[in-house]
């Protein structure tokens, strides 16, 4: 699979285009429909986080989604130029605690980690922020 890139404006109405872009590539890569759904959801969550937190709903910013094969795995990179954050400071919620107290928010990060094999962050101050989501084909 050749690497491919999609540039979108940071608007929530563009999420559907991101899911379609990722689903098509994942299908071509050989994933099952169930796994395609999981990957598309994880990438939706990553882009939603960028729109809400990095860009604070500024619709004039850009998000770059690149898909490539890396060491045999399916890798999706999501780049933005918004406010960076320290991912180590965002805890994965304890779902039992979460449900007991009817919390809201933070679910996206939990989902990304559950749906993908690897979630990595690359942050450079003043530069672009990157989230890399990786999924291996199950054999």
């Amino acid at each position, binding site marked *: 699979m050749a690497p491919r890139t999609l540039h979108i404006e940071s608007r929530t109405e563009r999420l559907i285009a991101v899911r379609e872009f990722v689903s098509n590539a994942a299908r071509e890569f050989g994933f099952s429909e169930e796994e395609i759904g999981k990957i598309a*959801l994880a990438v*939706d969550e990553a882009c939603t986080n960028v729109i809400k937190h990095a860009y604070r709903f500024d619709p004039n910013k850009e998000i770059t989604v690149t898909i490539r094969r890396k060491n045999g795995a399916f890798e999706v990179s999501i780049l933005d130029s918004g406010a960076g954050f320290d991912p180590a400071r965002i805890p994965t919620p304890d779902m*039992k605690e979460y449900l007991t107290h009817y919390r809201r928010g933070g*679910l996206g990060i939990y*989902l990304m980690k559950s749906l993908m094999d690897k979630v990595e962050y690359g942050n450079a101050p003043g530069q672009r922020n990157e989230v890399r989501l990786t999924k291996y084909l199950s054999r």
Partner: protein
Amino acid sequence: MSDFKISQREREQVQVLELKGYLDAHTAPKLEEAFQTLLKNQHFDIVVNCKDLSYISSAGLGVFMAYIEDVRKNKGDIKLSNMSAKVYNVFDLLGFPLLYEITKDEVEAIGKFTDKR
């Protein structure tokens, strides 16, 4: 253009919301609005029929979390029905079946309210 629709009807004094399409960060405010209207009108017995719901992300799940406490304080509940396996898996991944009653069909969900009356 919207890829998400909500229709509302009443069955045996239970409010039924039927969801259709894609529930994501773009469309979640619509569901939020529907819940706000129900609560404003003192409707607390709610069934959400997910038969035609094709997709849900955490933004949609967050809406259920946002209103369940208020609804239960008023002795009501939000029950979910007719979920596809794909949508159910997302709820399940987050442990939501512990918090929400999810039934196979709408009649069963409505029965959970009417049996108690």
